[in-house]
Structures are given as C-alpha cells and as structure tokens.
C-alpha cells in the first residue's frame, strides 16, 4: 500500500463494495455439490440412506443458501478483502489482546500436517502418541515458564481457564471439609472474567475499586478478606499496564486467612521469562496461549486457557491428564478428586501445537527478549503519544509513570476541548488503514478510553505510523471537525449509529431473524 511521501500516511481505501450476505446470493435449485444417489447394491443393504433416519428426518429441508462452488469462492474472497486485522494492517489497537505475529508455518502444521490434521480425537491414545507427546512437552515448558508444577490445556479460552480455576478452588476447600468459603476477591482493572466466571461458578464476588494511584487499595483488600474468602483472582500488570509492586503483600494476606491465590496472566507478554507466578507466591495461574504464545485468535475463534497449579492442587485438575509412563504417553482419567472434564476431547489441540512451536522457535532467551521488546515498544509509544494534543495518561505519577506492555489511554482532554471522544477517533482510524481500537472493559473508569498494546512484533516504523495517525486525527478534531463528523470516508459503509446496533429489537443476528424483522417472512 503506497504512502504519502511527506506525511507517510497510507493512501488507504477499504473495499468499495459491501458484499451481500450469502443468503442473498441463493438461487433455488442451484447446487455446489451434487450428492450421487446410492448405488443399487448399497441401497439394497441400507435403503436410500434417508429412511433409516426415521423420526430424526426433517420435515422440511434446512433453509441453507443454494449457491454454486464458484460463486461461494468469489463471495468469501470478496468478504476477506473487506476485513482488517493483523495480517492486513498495524494491529496494535487491540490492547489486552496481544495481537502479535503468528508465524504461518504454525498454521501449515496445524491444518495440513497429516499426523495432526488426520487424527481423530476419539482414537485410542496408543495411536496418537505424537499428539500426546506435544501436549506433554508443552506442559513441561509451561511449568518452567511459570514455576508451577502441573498444567492442563483443556479450557477453550482465558475466561474458561479462570472458570476452571474457580472450580478447582472450590474442590480444594471442600476436600478439606471447608464448605463455608464462598467468596472470591478481584480488582476493577483485572480482566472482567476474574469477576464474571467465579460468579457463574457460584461464588460471591467482591471487586476492589482502584484508588487515586490506580491500584486496588491494600486496606480495602484486607477489609474484604475473611474466613469466607475462597480465593483471589487478580491480574498483574492490570489493564492499565501498571505492575503492582506490592503484589506479594496481597498474596500473603490472602494466604493468612486460608484463601488460594489465582494469577490471571493474560498480560504475560509484560514479564515472560522475567517474572513467574511461583515467585509471586501464587498457587495457580492461567495463560492465554492464543495471545502470549502467538496462536492467533479473534472473532471468538479457537483459543486455549492454559491452567497451571502447584503440586497440592494437582488432584483437582481437569481430566484427562496427559502422562508419560517411561515408554509411552497415556491419558489418565483416574483422578477421583478432579473437577472433571471441562471441555470435549483434548482441548483445542491446534492452539497447543502452535504455542509449542512458538516457544521452541524462541527458546528461553527468546521469550525474555519478546517481553523486553514489547515493554520497550510500549514505552517508546508512550513518549510519543503523551505529547499528542487531547491525550491524557491517567495515573501518570509514581509507579504509574512506568508502564509495562500496554497503557489504557484517555481522550478526556480532546473530548472537553472539541466534543469529539474516543468513539469519534475510532471511527476515523479505519480511513488510515488501521482497524478500530479497543476502548476498555466496562465500566469506563478511565474516561474516553483506548487501550493500546504494541507487542514485540511491530517495528519502529509501524509505531511511528500508528502514533502519527492518532496525532493527525487529533489535529483534525481541533481544526477540521467536519472530517471527523463524517468519518469513516474510505469504506463501503459509513457511520453506524450505536444505539441501533445495540437495540435487540432492531438487530438481526440470523438470516431468519432478518427476514422476520423486515417483515419479509413470518
């Protein structure tokens, strides 16, 4: 994509078309694949292949789109050209998501290698030794990275991992006859799943609000602790990018009342190879393999929340556990105190494989370098963005002056000066070939927020371009408000009103809903 000689901004334009929904392409009777009728000999054995369904047979054919192969191909290729993401643009917008480069060889291995792609999860363990070996070896690597003793890769995402850990916390206390512990403590700047998933698991959740320094107040934490506290689930550094240097005091205080400490390490890119859950005193942790360990993610796609435990918690881990008996790898289901299975089969094996490859490609020093580089990138960007008109950095004093891998920024000043807030800037970003940024979890403690995480993958030129775009948009807000009002300009659709897309009465998430709401079909 060519760039302006002077400003270095890209002459970007999104796809000019607004691709139709595949249902709109449907032509009755058109087929992609014509399924042959059963041969006479087969039919004689099993009938026509339909009548055996009996009561399971549909009364009506499913309302699938009827489109030929070639048109399907064109449709999806055109759709793919309308997207933005890591493989198309500078994707440091998705703070807390760690949108790093995912080497394509990983994809090739996971999707095409016959030893991987052709394995069925219900095969006998003896016939998929290679798969089990990779899971086992990844566990050994994660043990070293965290300092903890055992890992499971069953959970299908970070929040699922936290849910699993909440379940393990309960199983541990109950195994000791302690049924009264029903409270989990977390913090406002921890990931919301640290509150939401224990709540779903049946715990009462206490959230600590940040003090004027951005930290959860230690005295509030101590006031919340009691003999009812089952555990704490906490992120560090929090989503502000500030590392809580007193974390050990929180952990010790929790242990003193008999609670367990679970470390949400979704932000592990900040300290990979430098700090470990074990030395911070935690009993358990989780990593997002799809973030920190590069296996790509997005659009709720496949993910893995790797959950790690100290020895004394291992009896409660999910099953099956992958073990090595000296000659072969086995699946151990014989764990009577286990919380049970948390996901089908062996978890998202493709993600485990990609993470394993990424760790092996980097080695111990490489992991550390990735963290250092991502902190350096963030601090470089911080210096540049701080000088951008309208930008405010909250908690910019004391410990908060130094950030690790990300910053939760604010356009508060811009909003006060010009009336344009973070939503307006976000709309304009795509005109420069950059996908919208992530604002903040709810509620917006930092007003008019945007969260940027320039992990190790991006070059100085990328960071300069990104900061330059934000500075340009800020200038436009102050000097050319009309440009912002109408943005985005270089795309097939213009601004979508937010209340409308949030209105359950108006939006349609399926074709059938669309037809009904448009009054086209009952």
């Amino acid at each position, binding site marked *: 994509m060519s760039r302006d000689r002077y400003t270095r901004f890209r002459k970007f334009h999104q796809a000019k078309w607004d691709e139709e929904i595949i249902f709109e392409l449907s032509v009755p009777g058109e087929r992609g694949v014509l399924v042959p009728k059963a041969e006479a000999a087969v039919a004689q054995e099993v009938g026509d292949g339909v009548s055996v369904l009996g009561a399971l047979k549909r009364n009506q054919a499913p309302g699938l789109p009827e489109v030929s192969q070639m048109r399907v191909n064109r449709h999806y290729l055109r759709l793919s050209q309308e997207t933005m993401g890591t493989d198309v643009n500078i994707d440091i917008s998705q703070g807390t998501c760690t949108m790093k480069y995912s080497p394509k060889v990983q994809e090739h291995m996971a999707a095409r290698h016959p030893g991987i792609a052709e394995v069925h999860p219900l095969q006998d363990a003896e016939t998929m030794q290679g798969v089990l070996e990779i899971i086992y070896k990844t566990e050994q690597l994660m043990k070293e990275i965290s300092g903890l003793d055992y890992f499971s890769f069953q959970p299908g995402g970070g929040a699922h991992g936290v849910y699993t850990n909440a379940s393990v916390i309960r199983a541990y206390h109950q195994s000791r006859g302690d049924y009264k512990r029903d409270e989990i403590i977390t913090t406002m700047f921890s990931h919301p799943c640290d509150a939401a998933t224990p709540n779903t698991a049946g715990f009462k959740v*206490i959230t600590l609000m940040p003090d004027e320094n951005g930290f959860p107040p230690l005295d509030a934490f101590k006031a*919340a602790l009691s003999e009812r506290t089952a555990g704490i689930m906490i992120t560090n550094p929090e989503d502000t990018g500030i590392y809580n240097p007193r974390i050990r005091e929180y952990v010790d205080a929790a242990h003193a009342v008999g609670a367990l400490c679970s470390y949400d390490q979704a932000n592990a890119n900040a300290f990979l190879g430098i700090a470990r859950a074990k030395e911070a005193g935690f009993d358990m942790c989780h990593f997002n393999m799809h973030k920190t360990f590069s296996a790509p993610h997005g659009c709720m796609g496949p993910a893995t929340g790797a959950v790690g435990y100290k020895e004394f918690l291992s009896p409660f881990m999910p099953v099956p556990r992958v073990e090595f008996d000296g000659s072969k790898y086995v699946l151990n289901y014989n764990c009577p105190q286990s919380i049970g299975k948390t996901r089908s089969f062996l978890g998202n094996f493709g993600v485990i494989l990609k993470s394993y490859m990424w760790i092996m490609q980097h080695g111990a020093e490489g992991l550390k370098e990735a963290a250092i580089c991502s902190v350096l990138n963030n601090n470089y960007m911080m210096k540049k963005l701080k000088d951008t008109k309208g930008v405010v950095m909250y908690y910019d004093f004391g410990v908060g002056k130094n950030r690790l891998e990300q910053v939760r920024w604010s356009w508060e000043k811009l909003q006060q000066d010009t*009336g344009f807030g973070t939503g307006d800037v976000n709309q304009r970003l795509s005109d420069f070939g950059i996908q919208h940024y992530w*604002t903040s*979890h709810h509620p917006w*403690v930092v007003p008019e927020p945007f969260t940027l995480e320039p992990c190790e993958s991006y070059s100085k030129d990328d960071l300069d371009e990104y900061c330059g775009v934000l500075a340009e948009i800020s200038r436009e807000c102050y000097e050319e408000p009309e440009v912002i009002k109408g943005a985005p300009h270089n795309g097939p659709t213009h601004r979508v009103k937010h209340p409308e897309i949030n209105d359950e009465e108006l939006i349609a998430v399926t074709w059938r809903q669309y037809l009904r709401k448009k009054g086209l079909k009952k």
Partner: protein
Amino acid sequence: MKKLGLIVNPVAGMGGRVGLKGSDGAEIQKRARELGAKPESPLRAIEALKVIARLKDQVEIITYPYEMGEVEAREAGFDPRVIGSINSGETNPEDTMQAAQDMVAAGVDIILFAGGDGTARNIYTAVGSGSDIPVLGIPAGVKIHSAVYAINPKSAGEAAALFLEGKAVNIREAEVMDIDEDAFREGRLSAQLYGYLNVPENKKYVQSVKSGARSEKAEVQGIAAEIVANMQDDAIYVIGPGTTTRSIMQKLELPYTLLGVDVVLNKQILANDVNEQQLYEFVKGKKTHIVVTAIGGQGHIFGRGNQQISPRVIRDAGKENITVVASRDKLVSIMPRPLLVDTGDPELDRQLSGYYRIVAGWQDTLMYKVGTE
C-alpha cells in the same frame, strides 16, 4: 428540525461568590447585588450553547425573553424563537416554572436550563415526574445537590448536542434535591429529595461486545434479586429512597414511595413513607436491616434526602446491618471521592466511615469507601 428549550435563571449563583450560600428569594438577591455579585449563569449558559452551536442549522432554540435565554442564545450565535414575557431584571421562580410549562407545550425535544438546585426544583414542579421530555442542567447555582446537572457547562452542551443528534438517546432518572437555605445559613443542613427528572444518559456510546457491558437497568434488577434473596425472616427492613432501592420493592411486588422510607417485614409491607418518629418505633429494639443507596450528585448514603433514617435509628440497627446498593456506573461517577455520611451526629459519622461491600448485582459487590467529606 429538533427543538431545544432553553431556560436561564439569571440570578442563580449570585449568592455564592459573596458568601451567601444560595440565591433563593428576592431579599437575598438584593443583598447579593449590593455585595457586588455579578450574574454567573448567563456566562455558563453561553459556554454550553457554544458547544451546541455546531448544530445551529439543525436545531431551533425556543426560549424566554432577554436574560432568561434570548440574550445567551444570540450571544452563542443562534437565532432563537422567543416566547413568553418577563420583567427584565426582576425575574422570579414563577418565570422559570411558566417557561418550563410553555416549552413543554411548544413540544421541545429537551429542556436545557442553567441554574442551581432551586431552579431544578422549579422545573420539576412545573413539568412533574410524569413528563417524558428530558431535561439537563447547566450547573450555575451555589447549591448543586441535584443529579440533573452535567459536571460542567461544556459537558452539558455536549450531552444535549449528542441527544439532539440522536447519538445518545438513553434516558435515566436523576434526583432533584434542594436544601433549606435559611436553615443552611444558620449552620443546619437539611436536604430534601423532591423527585426525579429524566435526563439524557451521559455515557456517549454503548460499549463494544467484549466489555460485556450490562445495562444499568439489568444491574439494578440484579441488585434487587440479591437483596431479596438474602432477606432474613422476622427482621425489619428499612428501605431508603431512590430508584435503586425502588427496584427491591418492585421485586417484592410491594407498594413503595420513591422519595420516602418504606418498612418491610417478612417480605410484607409494614408502612410506606414513614417519618423519623414512626420509623424509630418500628425498629426500636428489633433486629433491623437498613438498605440505602447513594443519593444526589455528591453520593450521600445518609443525611441527604433520607434524614428519616436518623442517628438513633442507625445506632439501633448497627453498622453491620447497613447495606449500601449502587450500580457500577454510579460508583464510577463518584470515584475517586468516597460515598458520604452526614447524619448530623459527627461521632456516628466517624463510626460509619470505612469500607463497605456495595451491592452492585447478583452475588456481586464492590469494596468502596464511605467517608465524612
């Protein structure tokens, strides 16, 4: 074309700069002028209107003559439609009320007004709680206990503009409060909750899916479910005023008073809208729980709008039996200031200070500090 009703209370805020603790009443206004007070609210109104000026061609301003809005609108670059009549230089609360009624009759989309708590009260009296027309205050008065005000004139203008543009169309109920100025001048603070007016939600955009943002309404329903599920048999429940606590009474399907204190026992109503004496008779010597929420723009849990729950009532119940309920958004709007207690009994206020588990949803609490200032 959208219609904006504009009301400026030109004398609001005059008493503040000269130390008069308010501007209600002709006599006080005269004294304020003698002390050299200058009108504050016209300047603040202009500041807010300048933000809206970007919609000049899309919005018609309907306002009252001279200093009650006409002058300010013109100063900000609008060509307003002027209705009604006043005696310039001698405006009074009746003018504010008449103006509000005339604007409702004129079918405005929103009423923007500049003033203080007294002005908000006049508007409330005029349009009532039944009105669908949202209002928004430009803070210009000495006393701002009401929650119908934006944090400053600029954000008032911005919120009104977003509402008129259709970008922020959600509405919430906000408290109208006022204190007795004469008592205040004598050193007593007596704030009363007069009612609720609809104001545009100040959050500009709904948050993206990842935030898992629940609506404040859903949160409040969760709060009600949590309180009701934990109600103990044979204990008196004192339910304070407010929209958050109202949800508890609705969940119980009991009659309630939005502005008053209701008493519940075994999920049945004992009494609605009790005064302090009646309340004390109910709770005296009995196992009692008090459920209150943050009232007004300052976030008071005791001492503003719920004085019926007096020091002796609170003492009788005990600090451990006080439950504070509030949505996340409410607490964030108060952060980093603590929630406040001002019972009129400094010793009790000190005892009530400290961290509370604020009930913010179903099995969901937030640790938050309660203080005295």
